[in-house]
């Protein structure tokens, strides 16, 4: 047997044995993106809450799907084949209706509204689905919805309604579709809830069309009116303006009142903020099953974002800043004034530090010139403040204990628990405290789980932005829950649910290693001065490997390698820096998970420098700002419609035109340098949006 034959056999064997499951790669990449962004937004404490809201809001804008099958039009149409016996409609806030004949083939496909039209645009406006089997059509639609990111969130809701005069058939189709979608979702993220019902055909179709909603949504509304006991005049019309997410939440609460709706909530917040007429944008997230039921409104201005909560029924603004534009034109504070504000804030919370002089003070302004970022050390603690540059109000603050010995500084809040804290430990003074048990109860109740079923419970009392919070983490089976509970009111501030490992296995989830035995429920028993990291550590080698893998380079190619182990806001990080040729790479790697938190590549265009210079005389070539922008957007994989806070600067660097382009998309900030002659990306950076 010769060498070639052996090689052929090996190649063939490897090709046969290698996994061939492309679909799975696509699915996991989708999930990775989700997960990646979630991991990343939790990395930086000051940005954590905000980032999470953004992620959720983006998904929740249209995170609900209604699938409706209606039947029994029959008879009068063009014979059996074209007789509609059922109508299937998919709503993603928008709605799609599929009319189905007796052979369960699609006769027609109707977009109920604009989002649906968009979704159907690459299916011939729905005509491509005509004549295909119902399950195939639903498969195509569910696939399109998943790809569009509608169904990947815990709060996604799917309503399957089947309306058909033949009750048996209705029930069967309903069950088949629920099973089908359920299975499809388990393969995806397993996050969306599936609701379903089947009814005989009623007059719901007429009223649905009158109100420009799907029959499924109409049926849901009728149910809510009946079950919640809503007696308002025009209740149907009012409820038809709500999204499916709002309706599902409303149904859950059983409230007999009608929520004001996202638009009114947004206007209430805008008016309260004094932002009317300023052309601001808003993101609204209904939280009707929160206590109190509210809308979370984010007002996005050129100066930044402002968050509001608006009572879901009265429209009263419960939290948020007033007159956000009035303060803008005022005089800026001096650095001393900003530092004084920070010191005053610190002294109010840590009286024993009141007389101390802050050391190692660093003051800088943020890139929007709207706040001072102040860091200083005082009494063994490192304080970080964001002070509004005009009003001196404390926008955000954080404190961490400086570890006297050892590598890196563990981030530990000065414990507010009175008995165990050493006398030197600064003690923030909470107003009221619901206590750990109530916080746990609130989380369990929201999650709909019993304490008896809960494992790996961990409750941490924490201050965030000066607010008392309980972070409650636990597992039920292979679902891991993370809650942030307001320590004064018991309100759920945020929550997250993730499926980890296999049920029954003890493998800890990669992202959240259990560092305590499952029975340990009281982290208070740890001395508050403990600064030892309680997270697992992948080690410098793996961190390096992760950075190299991301950069697509081999260790042998790199030079000037530097790896630093560090804690940022209590999160173990490795900072990995290296050079490959002329390119300088800087990575931040999560020390527990190996996830790339942020990275930066600079240089790598010396060859081009050469090219341009040697080409002679084309230094003034200029593709123009539009093309430069397009190059950056294309590289970032974003569309201009999603971009905000765009800044484009044309610069003449050593006779060469470069465009500096900055913009934001979602929770990220991008910075690009584009070669003005070629449109080539010279450097780029992606990081969390402040």
């Amino acid at each position: 047997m010769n060498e070639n034959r052996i090689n052929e056999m090996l190649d063939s064997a490897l090709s046969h044995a290698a996994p061939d499951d492309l679909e799975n790669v696509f699915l996991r990449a989708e999930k990775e993106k989700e997960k990646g962004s979630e991991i990343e937004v939790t990395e930086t404490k000051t940005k954590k809450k905000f980032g999470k809201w953004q992620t959720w809001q983006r998904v929740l804008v249209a995170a609900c799907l209604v699938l409706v099958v209606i039947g029994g039009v029959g008879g009068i149409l063009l014979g059996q084949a074209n007789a509609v016996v059922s109508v299937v409609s998919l709503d993603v806030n928008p709605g799609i209706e599929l009319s189905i004949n007796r052979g369960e083939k699609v006769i027609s496909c109707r977009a109920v509204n604009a989002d649906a039209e968009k979704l159907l645009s690459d299916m011939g406006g729905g005509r491509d689905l005509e004549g295909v089997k119902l399950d195939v059509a639903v498969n195509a639609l569910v696939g399109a919805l998943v790809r569009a990111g509608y169904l990947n969130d815990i709060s996604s809701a799917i309503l399957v309604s089947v309306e058909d005069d033949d009750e048996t058939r209705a029930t069967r189709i309903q069950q088949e579709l629920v099973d089908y979608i359920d299975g499809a979702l388990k393969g995806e993220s397993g996050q969306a809830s599936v609701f379903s019902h089947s009814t005989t055909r009623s007059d719901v179709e007429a009223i649905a069309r009158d109100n420009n909603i799907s029959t499924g949504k109409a049926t849901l509304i009728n149910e809510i009116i009946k079950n919640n006991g809503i007696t308002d005049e025009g209740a149907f019309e009012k409820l038809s303006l709500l999204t499916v997410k709002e309706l599902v939440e409303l149904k859950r609460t059983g409230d007999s009142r009608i929520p004001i709706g996202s638009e009114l909530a947004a206007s209430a917040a805008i008016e309260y903020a004094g932002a009317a007429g300023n052309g601001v944008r808003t993101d609204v997230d209904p939280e009707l099953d929160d206590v109190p039921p509210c809308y979370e409104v984010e007002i996005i201005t050129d100066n930044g974002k402002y968050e509001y909560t608006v009572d879901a029924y009265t429209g009263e603004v419960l939290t948020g800043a007033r007159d956000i534009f009035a303060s803008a034109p005022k005089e800026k504070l001096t650095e001393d004034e900003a530092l004084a504000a920070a010191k005053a804030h610190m002294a109010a919370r840590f009286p024993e530090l009141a007389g101390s002089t802050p050391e190692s003070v660093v003051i800088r302004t943020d890139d929007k010139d709207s706040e001072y970022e102040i860091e200083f050390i005082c009494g063994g603690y490192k304080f970080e403040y964001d002070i509004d540059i005009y009003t001196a109000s404390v926008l955000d603050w954080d404190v961490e204990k400086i570890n006297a010995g050892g590598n890196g500084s563990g981030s530990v809040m000065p414990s507010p628990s009175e008995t165990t804290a050493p006398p030197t430990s600064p003690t923030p003074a909470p107003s009221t405290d619901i206590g750990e048990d109530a916080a746990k109860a609130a989380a369990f109740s929201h999650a709909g789980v019993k304490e008896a079923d809960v494992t790996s419970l961990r409750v941490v009392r924490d201050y965030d932005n000066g607010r008392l919070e309980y972070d409650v983490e636990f597992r039920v089976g292979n679902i891991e829950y993370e809650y942030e509970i307001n320590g004064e009111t018991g309100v759920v501030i945020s929550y997250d649910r993730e499926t980890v490992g296999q049920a029954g296995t003890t493998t800890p989830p990669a992202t959240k290693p259990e560092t305590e035995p499952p029975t340990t429920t009281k982290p208070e028993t740890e001395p508050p001065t403990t600064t030892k990291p309680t997270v697992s550590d992948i080690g410098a080698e793996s961190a390096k490997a992760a950075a190299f893998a991301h950069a697509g380079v081999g260790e042998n190619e790199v030079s000037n390698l530097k790896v630093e182990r560090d804690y940022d806001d209590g999160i173990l990080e490795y900072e990995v820096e290296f050079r490959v040729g002329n390119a300088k790479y800087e990575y931040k790697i999560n020390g527990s998970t190996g996830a790339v938190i942020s990275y930066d590549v600079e240089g790598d265009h010396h060859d081009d420098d050469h090219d341009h210079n040697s080409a002679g005389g084309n230094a003034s070539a200029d593709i123009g700002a539009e093309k430069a922008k397009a190059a950056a957007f294309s590289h970032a994989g974003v569309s201009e419609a999603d971009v905000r806070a765009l800044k484009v600067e044309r610069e003449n660097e050593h006779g060469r035109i470069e465009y500096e382009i900055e913009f934001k998309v979602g929770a990220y900030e991008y910075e690009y340098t584009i070669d003005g002659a070629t449109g080539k990306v010279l450097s780029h950076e992606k990081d969390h949006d402040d």
Partner: protein
Amino acid sequence: MLIISGLTVSGTHDPEEDKQTLDDLIVRTGKGDREAFAELYGRTRAAVYAMALSYLKNAEDAEDAAQDTFVKILTSSGAYVPKGTPMAWILTITRNLSLMRMRRRMREGELSPEEWDAIPEDAPRVTSEDRLVLGEAMRSLTDEERRIVLLHASSGLKHRETAKLLELPLSTVLSKYNRAIKKLQSVLKGELV
């Protein structure tokens, strides 16, 4: 849904043309072209699996590491800069992911060299000949010999490129390759026609 045929890189292609194609496929993947990725997957999955298998020595782990590699490629190819060494780029990712997985496994105390198996029990396309030849490659060769032989057979990389990828001197790669082929010839003699 995309259906992918089982394309593999065989030694009959022009290597330079292959590199150009792979570079192009990665760049297109980075721009969100799913078909390009599908082709890239088809062309490189055997080599990626070979790399993972040669480090992890366990079919299940190797499958996972191979799939991890493609997830990584799919999510990070936007930053890919074509340098004319696409296969090395891909296999470096595989190697790093395999090493990470190996370290994790060692920490968890799961690694038992006797337990490895090159081929999953329920792999439908694997013939008995496949099972035999891969099994021998796993059993009879040293770690480095195995890596060199499997990569050579599946990746289309030249010995010089394999040497660079595995961080070994070219002379070592050449001698180990020759020794490995001889070993396989001898153990497979009589077993296969």
